[in-house]
């Protein structure tokens, strides 16, 4: 139900591009009509960087009724890999390649109350959620965190719409966010869903505080854009003695793909590290297991007894002379 449809690429034409802060630019483009982009959706855009073409995801800030006119907002990153420089260089009339709106961060009806938490350019992922919660007459708070007001996009629009429900947390005005009290002050009497988007450090702090208060993890919503693992993907060897099978997993292939190519009939379904059907027992490993799934718990991952072969990998031993990673599996 929530799984994304496959990205479908089309050409879009930039119809407006203007700055909203020193470093954040609003880019509006037109693409073929479809459905209105739902809150929480993003588009993937093909960007040109000094290193060549690449793909970046940008949250949709506004959508026309038929989804033919979409607006994203892009922060020019200090340590940009080139994507934001490309986006900031766009002018009216330029053509870009992008996907349809993709959903990874769905706003759901039915919570007792809502908290929207945005920090920095993370505002772009939740601004439309705020509009919908307001329209539906829901009980919500909108918490917006920034270093300084000059760096915070859309403050006036948010204040006009949300009034008292908007809580600005501005570091250089001495009102910065205290994560611990944000979580601790949520009422215990009923459930609150929190939708957050911001720097990974902030989101991780909220997540840890959330768990330490024993709140249900299903009520804390954030977008991960896929788990990228702890190590860069690299090639490693895999062996299944029962099948007399031994092969190499290339850095751009999954363990599941390599085993299937080598003739092993493995069980799998989601290929996103979610369902756990592809869990296989590890009999030995040289190197470090890079668990990239969300099926195994942190405790289970720590034992390295099993791994989910659709997404997880092996990284070479820390001792660089010990060779590449090597994995032996038991069926």
């Amino acid at each position, binding site marked *: 139900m*929530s799984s994304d449809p496959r990205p479908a690429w089309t050409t879009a034409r930039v119809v407006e591009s203007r700055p909203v802060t020193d470093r954040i630019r609003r880019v509006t483009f037109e693409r073929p009509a479809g459905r209105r982009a739902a809150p929480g959706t993003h588009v993937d855009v093909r960007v040109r960087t000094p290193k060549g073409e690449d793909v970046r995801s940008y949250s949709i800030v506004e959508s026309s009724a*038929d989804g033919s006119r979409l607006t994203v907002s892009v922060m020019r990153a200090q340590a940009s890999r080139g994507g934001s420089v490309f986006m900031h260089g766009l002018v009216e009339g330029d053509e870009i390649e992008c996907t349809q709106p993709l959903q990874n961060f769905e706003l759901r009806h039915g919570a007792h109350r809502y908290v929207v938490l945005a920090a920095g350019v993370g505002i772009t992922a939740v601004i439309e959620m705020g509009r*919908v919660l307001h*329209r539906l*007459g829901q009980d919500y708070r909108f918490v917006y965190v920034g270093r300084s007001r000059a760096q915070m996009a859309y403050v006036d629009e948010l204040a006009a719409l949300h009034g008292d429900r908007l809580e600005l947390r501005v570091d250089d005005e001495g009102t910065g966010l205290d994560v611990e009290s944000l979580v601790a002050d949520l009422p215990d009497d*009923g459930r609150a869903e929190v939708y957050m988007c911001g720097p990974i450090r902030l989101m991780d702090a909220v997540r840890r505080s959330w768990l330490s208060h024993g709140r249900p993890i299903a009520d804390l919503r954030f977008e991960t854009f896929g788990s990228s693992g702890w190590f860069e993907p690299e090639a490693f060897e895999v062996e299944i003695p029962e099948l007399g099978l031994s092969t190499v997993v290339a850095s751009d292939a999954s363990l599941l793909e390599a085993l299937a190519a080598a003739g092993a009939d493995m069980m799998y379904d989601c290929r996103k590290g979610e369902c756990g059907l592809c869990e296989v027992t590890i009999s030995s490993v040289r190197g470090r297991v890079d668990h990239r799934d*969300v099926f195994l*718990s942190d405790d289970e991952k720590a034992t390295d007894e099993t791994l989910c072969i659709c997404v997880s990998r092996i990284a070479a031993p820390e001792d660089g002379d010990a060779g590449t990673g090597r994995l032996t599996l038991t069926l």
Partner: protein
Amino acid sequence: MSLETHETVTAKIFPHPLNAWYAVAWDHEVTAKEPMSRTIAGKSMVLYRTTDNRPVALADACWHRLAPLSMGTLVGSDEIQCPYHGLRYNSTGRCTSMPAQQTVNPSAMVPSYPVVERYRYLWVWPGDMTLADPDLIPDMSQMSSPEWAGDGETIHAACNYQLILDNLMDLTHEEFVHGASLGQAELSESGFHTKLEDDGSVTVTRWMHEVEPPPFWRRNMRDKFPDFDGLVDRWQIIHYYAPSTICIDVGVAKAGTGADQGDRSQGVNGYVMNTITPETDRSSHYFWAFMRNYRLESQTITTQLRNGVHGVFGEDEVMLQAQQAAIDANPDHEFYSLNIDAGGMWVRRILDRMLAAEERGEDPLSARDLTGIGAAER
């Protein structure tokens, strides 16, 4: 304004908008004890309440292997547990627990429908949740006003919902279908006035002056004026609110006492509250109630009126079911219209515009769409 072409307007099986509030149940039917199942606009839903009494409407099929959640149990403060493998969902439809694993797949969820409690009904929005503005719920305020008393029932009608709207928008059928209780020849002899209002509602007004009250109304008059005998002025003012709610201001007053000028003190006034929810293309949940604004203290009158209307609407139910069967048995035959269909045809045109707006992804129920202002832009 140029003439629009309407292919769906005289459709025999009329499609239903999804971006709309529909009554799904009476408030008392949905509890925190047991889940219940109901199909609304082709979507099967499980309904229940949380322990703090909030209503919840989720898709009635587990994310895992689609077992009906309505056969499951309510657990904790707001969760429902699948009867088959024990997956649990909270009131937003997110899975919170899976069997035999320590984690929960973050993609596991079932659709959650906006649901609002108002006017003694629960209302659900089966379409795009981002458009589900509670202010769009049709005005049925007599249902919960201290100035009105009454009660009603639900008819599970074996027909397309639009046939019921047709039925209620033209009351000349009372003369033929309800001859024993409501009918009188003056119904079809007196003129009526149909108007599309600025807010997108439709009003059909009919006054019958100096007529014999039919049995139903004579009895009601005597509840308020025990010695009453003689002629009355009778009114029927039909209010239609898109997509499928019809509230009918009905009553009689002693003839010539000025009821048509606004003084209804010498009469009795009722409101027939009807909201019709498509279940499938060929079946509907028809929620009705009869409210009155006199003798509020009398539970006897409440029961008598409910039972009386039950009998009257039973006659409609027989006709509607037979009409649907005849429609299905004669697929090559079309609908033709009479002058008396003006109200029903406005309803059809408004529904047609709602469906078109839905196609374009636009906000539903805006007066602009319903009244056709701006239709030329299409």
